[in-house]
């Protein structure tokens, strides 16, 4: 990024001072190195978000920010319930895309001899890739129940354990969902997609805890060096994509009647109190429930497969976070608690220690923040910090973030070579698409370790553990 676009305020804080139509300052949290690699478009998008009505305090970007649609991916913005707007672009197409990490009660030695079998079993039981269909078939009424009930619905239907819900954001069910605001097209698109992983950067990964940075938090999360964990990265599938597509258009078309001047059509939004805003909230929250139910169903499938393969395996949910959402939260603004609509587009909620919404086991150390890396370099578990609330409404990064387009990646790497070189390092990859593997090659992403370090240095969340990939089923 061109340094002239920002002013440095400390090692990890970069200010875009309010000017022109901006209503608040913009703030990017990143190390100097990450800033150097960040596209100028991120600054432009942070500035554009700062012009939206009712924005409170600032327009923020996380250390993994990159050029998105309207909002930067890695963007965080909160809006006043009376004056503010809600933006379909500020949530994104993959509503409630997120990461769920599970403990297994196994250590690396337990599975060293059977990695190939596990890879095959997971590849078999988790539908992944373009056009894959799930085993769960839903009639329209069943789908409405799912959209209202989220992971709670899934557990009621026999997918997973009741205990899983306590370790899912919103206790597994997003309140305020209104399935009647979800179009028939969106429902039709989801009919065969429940219990599927999707494609692109979505994955299911068996991981080993490589290094623990914060012993107390790791103990609270129930993880130790050498432990085997499983992480799932996926979202609300076709239903969320269709809701995003339809509301983006409605918001673009209705913006003039609400007097909204959009610096970029992709920033399409509506006043929170308007009929379109309320309709989107009902549909978007249904999308969140769809994603929570989907990850719950996938949990059930992999739990069955894993516990059949290894008699010692006991799959327990560590936590489930969503990183494309808009949620109503209470935050301190100018010393007073205020109800706000917080958009996180490619950013994770990161509640600090003591937050009443956390399960009691984690309350002393803060919320687990699950950061997906690449299939070659690993992932991180962070914990929400005390300072994150004041910095960016208790938010942190969400992943490594691409530094190379898909097209460029396919010019650099061939899928088969990527699979072979990772196998050489002891990482087994299973995918139906070699071109997909090339597009997702580890080298196409930023260094996730640098992102996690910058997130800690900025005070957004602190590092708890680093995870190394062992088996990866790619969508």
């Amino acid at each position, binding site marked *: 990024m061109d340094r002239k676009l920002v002013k440095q305020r400390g090692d990890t804080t970069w200010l875009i001072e309010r000017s022109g139509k901006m209503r608040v300052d913009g703030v990017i949290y990143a190390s100097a190195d990450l800033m150097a690699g960040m596209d100028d478009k991120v600054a432009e998008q942070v500035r554009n978000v700062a012009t939206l009505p009712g924005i409170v305090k600032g327009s923020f970007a996380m250390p993994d920010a990159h050029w998105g649609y*309207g909002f930067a991916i890695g963007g965080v913005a909160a809006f006043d319930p009376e004056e503010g707007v809600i933006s379909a672009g500020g949530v994104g197409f*993959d509503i409630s895309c997120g990461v769920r990490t599970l403990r297994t009660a196994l250590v690396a030695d337990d599975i060293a001899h059977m990695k190939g079998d596990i890879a095959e079993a997971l590849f078999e039981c988790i539908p992944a890739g373009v056009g894959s269909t799930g085993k769960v078939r839903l009639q329209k009424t069943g789908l409405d129940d799912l959209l209202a009930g989220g992971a709670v619905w899934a557990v009621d239907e026999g997918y997973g354990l009741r205990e899983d819900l306590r370790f899912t954001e919103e206790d597994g069910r997003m309140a305020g969902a209104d399935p009647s605001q979800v179009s028939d097209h969106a429902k039709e698109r989801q009919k065969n997609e429940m219990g599927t992983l999707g494609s*692109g950067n979505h994955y299911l990964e068996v991981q080993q805890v490589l290094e623990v940075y914060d012993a107390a938090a790791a103990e609270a999360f129930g993880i130790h060096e050498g432990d085997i964990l499983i992480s799932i990265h996926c979202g609300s599938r076709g239903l969320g994509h*269709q809701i995003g597509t339809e509301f983006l258009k409605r918001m673009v078309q209705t913006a003039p009647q609400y007097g909204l001047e959009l610096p970029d059509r*992709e920033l399409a939004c509506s006043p929170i109190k308007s009929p379109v805003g309320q309709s989107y909230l009902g549909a978007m929250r249904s999308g969140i429930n769809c994603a929570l139910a989907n990850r719950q169903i996938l949990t059930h499938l992999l739990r069955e497969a894993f516990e059949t393969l290894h008699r010692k395996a006991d799959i327990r949910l560590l936590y489930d976070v969503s990183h494309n959402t808009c949620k109503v939260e209470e935050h301190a603004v100018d010393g007073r608690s205020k109800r706000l609509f917080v958009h996180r587009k490619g950013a994770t909620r990161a509640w600090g220690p003591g937050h009443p919404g956390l399960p009691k086991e984690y309350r002393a150390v803060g919320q687990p923040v699950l950061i997906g890396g690449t299939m070659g370099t690993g992932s991180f578990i962070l914990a929400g910090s005390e300072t994150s609330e004041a910095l960016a409404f208790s938010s942190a990064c969400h992943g490594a973030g691409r530094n190379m387009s898909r097209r460029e990646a396919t010019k650099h790497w061939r899928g088969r070579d990527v699979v072979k070189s990772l196998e050489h390092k002891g990482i087994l990859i299973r995918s139906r698409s070699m071109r997909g593997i090339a597009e997702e090659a580890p080298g196409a992403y930023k260094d996730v370790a640098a992102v996690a370090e910058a997130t800690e240095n900025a005070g957004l969340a602190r590092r708890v553990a680093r995870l190394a990939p062992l088996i990866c089923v790619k969508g």
Partner: protein
Amino acid sequence: MWEHFHHQADIGVRGIGETLDEAFAEAARALTAVICSPDKVDPRQAVEIRRQCDDMELLLVDWLNALIYEMAVRGMIFSRFEVHIKGDALTATAWGDKADPELHETAVEVKGATYTQLKVAQKEDKWIAQCVVDV
């Protein structure tokens, strides 16, 4: 003629043609090329698509999103397109086949067409129809 253009996280699709109709059809081929090589897909089954919008740029996004929807619910991939735009109405036929990951070597599904770098314009004697798609 179609091409892809750079976007850091995703990919831009651009159709170029002698007419607006051709640019829209080529943009659709560029969309398929995000998923797999269009040449691998046998255009054996036809699907009719109709859309209406008085803003040509929004109509392009509508057209691509209609294809994304049809691909998702029919489990198909399209490789041949015929588009007719008259006034604000688009009438089109897309021909394709059932998606087969092994046969078509599919890389990634497209979640939606976006308004990012969206442009429908006549440049010299050619029409261009383009936008970024989210994958």
